[in-house]
């Protein structure tokens, strides 16, 4: 019983980190209809900025986190204007894949040149070090912090997309851009804002997840499969779906590793296949799918 509890707690912690990084991808893929394979690269850039802010400039963790998100969003907005705007709307998926994977390679090479190939870390503040007990199981404070922020992200995004003016306009623009424009909704601005939202979430995940997915220049390529798996299972554009998918995959993966470690990643991919077999469009059919 205690073991089972331990597996669930570890699985939820791992799943929440997966969720925080992947949900931004779900937003761009589901709402903007852009297969943004550079998502991992944006997360990585934010991680490097936070690492530099903390270690190079000596700023506190929270300041580094905010700076990393702002920097990444501001740095990628020109990309949105110059590049992404041309590939919105899934008219040509191949062009999307080629453009974004090319962008990923450019960012990988740039980071490698600027920071070198060695690992970087973001030092945690004292408040996030140590362990906290949840019943009979103790987990690192940092993970508990990430779980809490993950839960806040789920609620915040749900509220933003379902309950605000912005969300209503965005959904209208996604469903029928021409009609939305005819009704006076400024779709271009909406798209820019949504792109910034997706990038900001990538940045948040890159910084918070750095303890689990260590920062090195190949981060962008190494982990993108994980993020895509979560989005595929959750259903693109579906916030609650992404959360459920990340938690399910996190728990399955953790249980598999605990019970039969030599099977490796078998359980993760087996779960992926089974879920997609039963729910081809993800847990909750995505709004945009």
């Amino acid at each position, binding site marked *: 019983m205690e*073991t089972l509890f*331990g*597996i669930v707690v*570890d699985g939820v*912690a*791992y799943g929440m980190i997966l969720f925080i990084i992947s949900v931004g991808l779900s937003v761009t893929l589901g709402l903007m209809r852009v297969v943004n394979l550079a998502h991992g690269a944006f997360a990585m850039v934010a991680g490097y900025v936070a690492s530099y802010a903390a270690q190079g400039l000596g700023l506190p963790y929270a300041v580094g986190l905010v700076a990393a998100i702002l920097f990444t969003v501001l740095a990628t907005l020109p990309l949105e204007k110059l590049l992404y705007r041309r590939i919105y709307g899934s008219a040509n998926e191949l062009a999307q894949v080629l453009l974004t994977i090319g962008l990923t390679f450019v960012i990988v090479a740039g980071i*490698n040149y600027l920071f*070198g*190939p*060695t*690992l*970087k*870390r973001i*030092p945690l503040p004292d408040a996030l070090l140590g*362990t906290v007990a949840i019943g009979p199981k*103790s*987990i*690192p404070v*940092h*993970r508990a912090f990430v779980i809490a922020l993950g839960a806040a992200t789920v609620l915040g995004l749900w509220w933003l997309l379902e309950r605000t003016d912005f969300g209503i306009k965005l959904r209208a623009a996604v469903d029928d851009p021409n009609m939305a424009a005819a009704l006076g909704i400024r779709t271009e601005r909406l798209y820019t804002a949504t792109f910034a939202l997706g990038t900001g979430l990538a940045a948040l995940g890159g910084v918070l997840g750095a*303890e*689990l*997915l*260590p920062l*090195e*220049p*190949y981060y962008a390529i*190494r*982990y993108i499969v*994980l993020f895509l798996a979560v989005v595929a299972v959750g259903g693109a554009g579906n916030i609650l779906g992404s959360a459920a998918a990340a938690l399910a995959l996190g728990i399955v*993966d*953790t*249980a598999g*590793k*605990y019970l039969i*470690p*030599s099977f*490796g*990643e078998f359980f993760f991919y087996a779960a992926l296949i089974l879920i997609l077999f039963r729910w081809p469009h993800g847990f909750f059919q995505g709004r945009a799918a």
Partner: protein
Amino acid sequence: MSGTFRKALLGTAFLCALNAGSAWADTIKVGVIAPFSGPFATVGQTFKQAIEVYQAQHGKTVAGNTVEFVYKDLDQANPAQSKALAQELVVKEKVGYLAGFFFTPDALAVAPLIDEANIPCVIFNAATSAITEKSPRYVRTSFTLWQNTVPLAEHVAKQGIRKVATAVSDYGPGIDGETAFKQTFEKSGGKVVDSIRMPLKSTDFAPFMQRIKDSGAEAIYAFLPAGPTTLGFARAFSDTGLKAAGIRFFGPGDITQEPDLPVLGDAAVGITTTFNYSQAHDSDLNRQFLAKHKELFGSSDIVTFTSVGAYDGAHVIYRMVEATGGKSDGAKAVAAVKGMAWESPRGPVRIDPESRHVTQTIYLRVTERKDGRLQNTEVAGFPDQPDYGFKAGK
């Protein structure tokens, strides 16, 4: 036009005059295959810098022959590509020696080629025991998992520790390490209570930590290849409270290699490892090696076990060139270095005639903070350790 022609004539005359002193001088090329780009680029960098340090200290000529190193980039484990690069080096560049190799499969792939061309191959890193069994022209100057693990397992047993869990990455060297530890430790009366093979691509180590906790082990033996995974593992070990619970952490030194120490931070403090080289090794030769490195490249922070593997590899190649008088003869060159002994920055080393692997002192190290910097402090040495995993006649 005529001016250029005159310059060319003058240049030729000047070159002839230079060469007159050493009429039989030749340039001998050594092909180095290693990752110089991609996720393992630091390895290639350490190889190249160590060779340059060696050449700066010992000159570029041996017995009148100039030794020139030619580098080929192999960015990740890729045996087919490794073989193709080796072929290119032998046929087009006419190299007389092959060297380098970070990954075992890449080193193994060139075995038929070096036999056919009769070229010696000096391995700077690849650490699976089976490699030198595959061709008599392999010589290795690094270490093997068996070599590091056997003295470690004996040491753990002597500490009075009876129950150990092993956790290794699920591939060749990891399984070598697991087998070596289990055999030695159980022979010494201990018991391995759980053997965990972790997928190479693991990012979350919490479930493994829970398993180790549940197994009731007093200590763990862990091996993971240096890089992002070691970082995750060492941090999980301290974050999940295993360290605080008093479980001891043992492993080969890859897990606390010098370039990773600043990132590992306090999570690394107290990890006990066995390895052939530590930057903190206390000898004049090592201090000279590090000083020269710093002089040439501005910093010696990235100097690690792969540096010393390449440095000693260059030394072995120099002796081979000397022994064959500049002619390419793999069998003769390898025969000349069998039993060769010298003092390296890591301490006294010797090429074992049978396994053609380096016999060396394996040091017991504890990671600690000294003057604000983390280092692997050597606390004891086990001299003359051979490769216990070598099986002759295979």
